[in-house]
């Protein structure tokens, strides 16, 4: 892997490291590690987007949706099942879903098997509308009884009660499934259509998460998702930990929260390294060369007998799976699923800035972009506040403009990201670590 990193890249990574270490000294190690952990997650998201955009030139603006699917996986895998809710209507909800899926399958079958003609035109609406009403009839009743079970604390089916780490691959699978459906319909058409289809599916996934209370409590949020790492409270009472803290010379309370963050960081680093290794392998393999050949000239690639649409679908599903995994990791890190926090600007477009700035078509570039842009995203606000205070220092403290400017600092980051994106796209379109 040393071959893949040249001096410039190493220097850039060193610079980013300096940023994080500097944050540790100037602000606090806790802050620095918090940013670092989300930086790791962002880097993985950027790897996924890079796989779609850098390898294959696919334009996915539904990153948010796949991240949210990963988050949903964390809930479904790790939360304890709510037995009462299952007894009340769990089976009925599942049955409803199966009926819904069967309707769609049946409609697809009818469409492909029946000969074109009046018969088919008539059969399609009958199947779809009839199926929809049966689905709603079974499903709604089940949902109502599930949501009636102790709505303040549960009101949903719960999960499987398995270790949360399992949710990471499951999150990838869920996202892959979503991506397959979208890819099946929108790939093979012009590139903008994929963009708009993914934009739509992301909004719908968020709408489902917000409204389907039986699934993950909707806007009531699921909190207290089990952790893969120890809790601070337990650490502070463990003898070995108090010893360790004393030897380092830190207070057990501060050190415990740093220790927990380090645990998360090491887990995430392992995942990131595995993914980078796999991505680099894929990039340098015949498969990677084929993807680039398709990206650079679809016509000649298909003339060489490559199935462009199938390869696009493949890489789209793979990239989305990586994004979904990152989403599950993020929800694990937060220990909660809050559908209201999923904003396209933050989850879709920011990841795009990471990939473009870092260097599309270069896995290391995407990772670098993930760390750098995430750090900026967080730090622009305090920096902006400092600047604003400087600007407004001479103003009357009661003046309307001064207060308005100080309040508006929060929106500086959007502006900054837009400017960075446009500048990089214009003057260094290949990014900080360009494709080799």
């Amino acid at each position: 892997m040393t071959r893949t990193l040249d001096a410039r890249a190493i220097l850039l990574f060193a610079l980013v490291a300096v940023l994080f270490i500097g944050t540790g000294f100037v602000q606090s190690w806790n802050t620095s590690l918090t940013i670092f952990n989300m930086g790791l997650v962002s880097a993985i998201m950027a790897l996924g987007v890079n796989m779609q955009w850098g390898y294959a030139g696919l334009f996915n603006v539904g990153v948010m949706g796949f991240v949210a699917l990963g988050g949903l996986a964390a809930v479904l895998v790790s939360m304890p099942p709510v037995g009462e809710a299952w007894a009340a209507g769990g089976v009925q909800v599942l049955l409803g879903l199966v009926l819904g899926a069967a309707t769609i399958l049946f409609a697809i079958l009818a469409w492909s098997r029946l000969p074109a003609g009046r018969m088919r035109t008539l059969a399609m609406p009958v199947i779809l509308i009839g199926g929809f009403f049966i689905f709603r009839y079974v499903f709604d009743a089940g949902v109502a009884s599930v949501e009636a079970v102790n709505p303040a604390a549960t009101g949903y089916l719960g999960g499987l009660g398995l270790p949360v780490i399992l949710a990471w691959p499951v999150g990838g699978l869920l996202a892959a499934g979503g991506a397959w459906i979208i890819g099946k319909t929108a790939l093979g058409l012009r590139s903008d259509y994929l963009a708009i289809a993914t934009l739509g599916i992301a909004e719908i996934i968020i709408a489902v998460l917000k409204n389907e209370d039986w699934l993950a409590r909707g806007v009531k949020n699921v909190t207290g998702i089990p952790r893969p790492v120890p809790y601070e409270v337990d650490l502070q009472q463990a003898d070995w930990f108090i010893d360790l803290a004393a030897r380092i010379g830190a207070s057990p309370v501060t050190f415990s929260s740093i220790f927990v963050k380090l645990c998360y960081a090491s887990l995430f680093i392992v995942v990131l390294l595995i993914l980078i290794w796999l991505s680099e392998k894929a990039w340098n393999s015949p498969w990677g060369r084929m993807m680039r050949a398709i990206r650079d000239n679809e016509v000649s690639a298909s003339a060489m007998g490559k199935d462009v649409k199938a390869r696009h679908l493949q890489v789209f599903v793979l990239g989305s799976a990586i994004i979904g995994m990152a989403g599950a990791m993020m929800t694990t890190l937060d220990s909660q699923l809050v559908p209201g926090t999923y904003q396209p600007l933050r989850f879709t477009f920011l990841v795009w800035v990471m990939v473009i700035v870092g260097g599309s078509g270069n896995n290391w570039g995407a990772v670098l972009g993930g760390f750098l842009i995430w750090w900026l995203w967080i730090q622009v606000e305090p920096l902006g506040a400092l600047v604003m205070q400087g600007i407004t220092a001479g103003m009357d403290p009661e003046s309307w403009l001064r207060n308005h400017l100080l309040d508006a600092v929060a929106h500086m980051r959007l502006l900054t990201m837009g400017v960075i994106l446009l500048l990089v796209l214009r003057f260094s379109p290949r990014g900080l670590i360009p494709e080799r």
Partner: protein
Amino acid sequence: MDLLNALVTLLNFVIIPATAYGAQLALGALGVTLIYGILRFSNFAHGDTMAFGTMVVILCTWALQGAGITLGPLPTALLALPIGIAVTGLLVVGTDKMVYRFYRRQKAKPVIYVIASLGVMFILNGIVRFIIGVDDQRFADGERFIISAGTFRDMTGLEEGLAFRTSQGLTIVVALIAMALLFWFLNRTRTGKSMRAFSDNEDLALLSGINPERVVMITWLIVAALATTAGVLYGLDKSFKPFTYFQLLLPIFASAIVGGLGNPVGAILGGFLIAFSEVGVTYAFRKVVAYILPESMEPSGLLQLLSTDYKFAVSFGILLIVLLFKPTGIMKGKSV
């Protein structure tokens, strides 16, 4: 009588709101489709352009109201609209000069423009939030109703009231005027014809001496006018919130694609199609059906196909169906 009541309910809750919403979507989709036809990319910054224009209009409206100038029964925002269009026009032409022109000279791939438009979207989003904040702003004034529910009941003696709000009437009238102007411009004037020629066949248009920079600038100006008008009408009808405008991107794109990207007539059709399906699918038809059917058959459920939270799913569903069966849209659009 019951049939009339059912009809009035339907008008009140489905047809009138959907027509107004459809007109707003159509204006938005026209902007997207024009950019697509002339510059050949999907402009993701369109929703935020609408938000920017509306913000300028709101600020002007407040200034006018502060100075005591109003339009009587009509919203003051109409007076501020030309200013909003002018400022937004300056903004988009400036953006074009600073951002897009470079890629035009490079003959960059369409997707590069789209990414650049993402950057513009971020910046506009930031500017709008910076200036006016993220909260809901109401700026409608003047008479609220053309016909209010009470008046209508008194007039007709029907059980159901029909409320026709000024903003809805205004939307329909203004949208009609805007569309008429646009089609007159595209079909009758020399500049409009050169735009269509440019959209149909760029090389041929260049060969016959059409100045591409001029065509592009005029397109941006028209788009600014359409976007600002659409944004203001939407804001008057509902309310102004930057994030809602960003979210309008999806139904607007859906309208433009369903109608056929690059085809103005298609954009209008698509706008109304999306609006009517959205309102129709998310409306609870119980009351309407209750009037039509005899009492014994009165439905127990709400007769609502989808909850209003899933209105995006409607535009998306239609979009998928069109993509699957007719990728170029209802009216034949371009597909590069």
